């Protein structure tokens, strides 16, 4: 893959040059959406074809070069009601490219394993003697014919990884796997030449098949999660509307913004770069940066950060930085640094391999030397040594961890928890402290109407109808509250949004207003409500809105505490709001008003004290902390950058996935250890026998498959068994 955003080709349409562009489509959920997307794009003159891709939430459009700009494609989709963005070369990866390769190898290994098994079963089952040696030899050679190319092709991922590890003078699990498979194959060829019965092509290829299967499932999960994250990044990769010197508005990519440019940001849009507000007054949602959920009122002269959302009318901002100089970009850099530090984690299977591989190789050598000294001749000695290596060929050991991991990840996936990092489960299992962000993590991160039941349904319905067209979080909260109570929301026309104050409508009976209490006519001192509605007849109704805790937050934190985990809240929000949540959840260690760097400092302090910290956070300000912590979790409502930084993302409004993740991770860890025990026990039993030269091929084959089956069966228990956090 060349990483190019647009592929050109001279083919098709009478030699006209065609180009293909891939767009991420955020809200494409079903077959109907898929067709709407395709029809919307195909309707554009110049577009030759459009193919939507539902699992990747992307669409590829092929068009005649030079006739259709990408922005036109995006606009067409927006008119059809979709959120779309062109994917930049950095985050455009063919959604299935990495696992296509594995799938192809898996197919070849599967074909070979099935056919070789067919031949092997007939050889094994006729061991009574009703198969002539020549037929047996023919079957062995047929097996070799299938196995050799298949192993050479299907084993490449393992051989490559083993070679890379050895080049760095390290050992990973792929080293014994590669050695075992190679030796089993070579010895089988040798024994086929000699015409004996110790031919193990079936074992070698079946092992590869199972390992590839595990690796494929493991990778598919992560590719899916990573693709979703890339789409999110693409969808928010901002463009900016710039006011040129000649007074014309022009839409350019955010990376082309230079300091001094005047940028128009419409209501509901994110600011593309940091800058000073020139014109416009209103509310700005800064929760992404500060974690503070109450919108901030801004007036001309105020400094605004990239990534925050304009909630009111259009605002003109003078860019103070380029796209790279923003606080957002700074946070991304902090995150990258923190992630590098974590890259040194050594996975459980590799730690086992570091112990196991030298031991196995030493035993093989010992056997060889022993038999040589005992006078068995080099051929007999080598056969015994290879038998040891094949017996220890880490079938079960290599399956021990991947099988558990696949079972655990798919269990979590079914419950809406996407595990993205390959080694995340192992790190989750080691956690002994949990650090929470407040806004958006312990709370829902959006205001909800608290006094909905004390308000007349008709009043609420009228207010919600007025609010229906606004993007302000308070307006949306009213609409949600009305919907929850099944109140009818009628579309109203003539609503004016007065930036910084609220919504207003002229009716035949008088003026209707929804907005700031003092603007609606509630005098100071009485303004305990967040929002006020003044009906046309002058009746006033107050609404209390606040960021509500996730419904099961108390239950979840109690479960975590009961399991002996130390809890802590680190928030960028104000002290009183944090203390309130801390008290409600009975978490004593609370810190408020922290900057991203302070959060990192606290996490480093904890890890310096030997704690393994799980960071659960959602805001942009949490992203570096998420990357610093030993392991991290993020809700799916989180900022894109946080989702990228987190090891796993959980969906839904509940906090219990945090408990579930830790519980499953710990169970998976226990199970991986059990599997190691099974595999090692089997080796302890058979290696001495093999060293003494007493293992018959049939016994070895049966024992080998049994240990693999036992390990896999044990892992599969994890999909269904009840798991509690202890």
């Amino acid at each position, binding site marked *: 893959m060349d990483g190019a955003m647009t592929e050109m080709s001279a083919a098709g349409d009478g030699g006209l040059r065609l180009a293909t562009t891939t767009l991420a489509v955020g809200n494409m959920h079903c*077959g109907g959406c898929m067709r709407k997307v395709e029809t919307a794009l195909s309707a554009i003159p110049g577009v030759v074809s459009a193919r939507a891709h539902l*699992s990747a939430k992307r669409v590829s459009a092929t068009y005649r070069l030079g006739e259709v700009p990408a922005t036109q494609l995006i606009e067409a989709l927006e008119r059809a009601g979709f959120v779309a963005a062109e994917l930049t070369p950095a985050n455009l990866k063919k959604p*299935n490219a990495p696992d*296509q390769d594995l799938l192809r190898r898996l*197919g*070849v290994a599967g*074909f070979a394993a*099935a*056919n070789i098994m067919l031949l092997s079963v007939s050889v094994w089952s006729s061991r009574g003697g009703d198969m002539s040696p020549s*037929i047996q030899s023919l079957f062995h050679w047929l097996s070799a014919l299938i196995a050799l190319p298949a192993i050479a092709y299907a084993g490449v991922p393992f051989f490559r990884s083993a070679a890379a590890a050895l080049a760095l003078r390290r050992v990973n699990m792929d080293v014994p796997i590669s050695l075992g498979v190679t030796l089993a194959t070579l010895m089988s060829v040798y024994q086929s030449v000699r015409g004996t019965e110790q031919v193990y092509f079936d074992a070698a290829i079946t092992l590869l098949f199972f390992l590839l299967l595990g690796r494929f499932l493991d990778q598919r999960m992560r590719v899916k999660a990573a693709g979703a994250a890339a789409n999110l990044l693409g969808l928010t990769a901002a463009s900016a509307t710039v006011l040129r010197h000649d007074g014309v508005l022009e839409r350019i990519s955010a990376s082309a913004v230079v300091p001094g440019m005047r940028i128009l940001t419409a209501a509901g849009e994110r600011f593309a770069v940091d800058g000073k507000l020139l014109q416009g007054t209103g509310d700005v949602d800064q929760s992404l940066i500060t974690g503070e959920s109450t919108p901030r009122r801004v007036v001309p002269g105020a400094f605004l950060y990239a990534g925050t959302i304009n909630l009111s009318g259009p605002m003109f901002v003078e860019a103070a930085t380029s796209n790279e100089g923003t606080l957002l970009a700074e946070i991304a850099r902090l995150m990258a640094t923190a992630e590098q530090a974590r890259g040194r984690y050594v996975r459980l299977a590799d730690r086992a391999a570091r112990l196991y591989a030298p031991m196995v190789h030493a035993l093989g050598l010992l056997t060889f030397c022993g038999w040589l000294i005992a006078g068995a001749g080099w051929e007999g000695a080598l056969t015994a040594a290879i038998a040891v290596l094949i017996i220890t060929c880490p079938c079960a050991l290599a399956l021990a961890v991947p099988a558990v991991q696949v079972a655990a990840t798919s269990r979590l996936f079914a419950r809406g928890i996407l595990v993205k990092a390959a080694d995340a489960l192992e790190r989750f299992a080691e956690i002994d402290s949990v650090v929470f962000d407040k806004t958006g993590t312990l709370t829902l991160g959006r205001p909800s109407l608290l006094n909905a039941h004390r308000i007349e349904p008709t009043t609420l319905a009228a207010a919600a109808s007025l609010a229906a067209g606004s993007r302000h979080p308070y307006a949306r909260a009213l609409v949600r509250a009305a919907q929850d109570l099944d109140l009818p929301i009628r579309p109203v026309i003539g609503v004016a949004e007065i930036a910084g104050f609220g919504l207003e409508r002229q009716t035949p009976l008088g003026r209707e207003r929804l907005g700031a209490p003092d603007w609606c006519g509630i005098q100071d001192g009485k303004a305990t409500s967040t929002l006020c509605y003044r009906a046309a007849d002058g009746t006033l109704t107050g609404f209390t809105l606040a960021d509500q805790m996730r419904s099961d937050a108390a239950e979840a934190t109690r479960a975590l505490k009961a399991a002996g985990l130390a809890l802590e809240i680190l928030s960028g929000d104000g002290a009183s709001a944090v203390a309130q949540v801390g008290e409600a959840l009975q978490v004593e260690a609370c810190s408020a008003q922290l900057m991203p760097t302070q959060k990192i400092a606290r996490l480093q302090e904890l890890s310096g004290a030997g704690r393994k910290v799980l960071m659960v956070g959602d805001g942009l300000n949490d992203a570096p902390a998420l990357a610093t912590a030993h392991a991290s979790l993020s809700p799916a409502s989180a900022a894109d950058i946080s989702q990228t930084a987190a090891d796993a993302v959980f969906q839904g409004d509940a906090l219990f996935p945090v408990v579930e993740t830790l519980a499953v991770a710990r169970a998976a860890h226990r199970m991986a250890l059990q599997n190691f025990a099974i595999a090692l026990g089997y080796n302890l039993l058979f290696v001495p026998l093999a060293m003494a030269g007493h293992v018959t091929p049939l016994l070895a084959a049966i024992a080998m498959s049994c240990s693999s089956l036992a390990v896999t069966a044990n892992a599969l228990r994890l999909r269904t068994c009840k798991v509690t956090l202890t």
Partner: protein
Amino acid sequence: MTALAWLIPCALLLGLAGLAAFLWSLHSGQFDDLEGAGWRILEDEDEESRERGPHR
């Protein structure tokens, strides 16, 4: 034993045919969008009728 002479090639050829079919389907992108493929079956309009426009 002459049965083997044609049974074994048969088995191998069938297996190879299966493998070839799998590799072809993989290459032609049938595994690219497993979710979307399921939905596409349910779509009433096929390519031709879409070009001709809706017909009821």
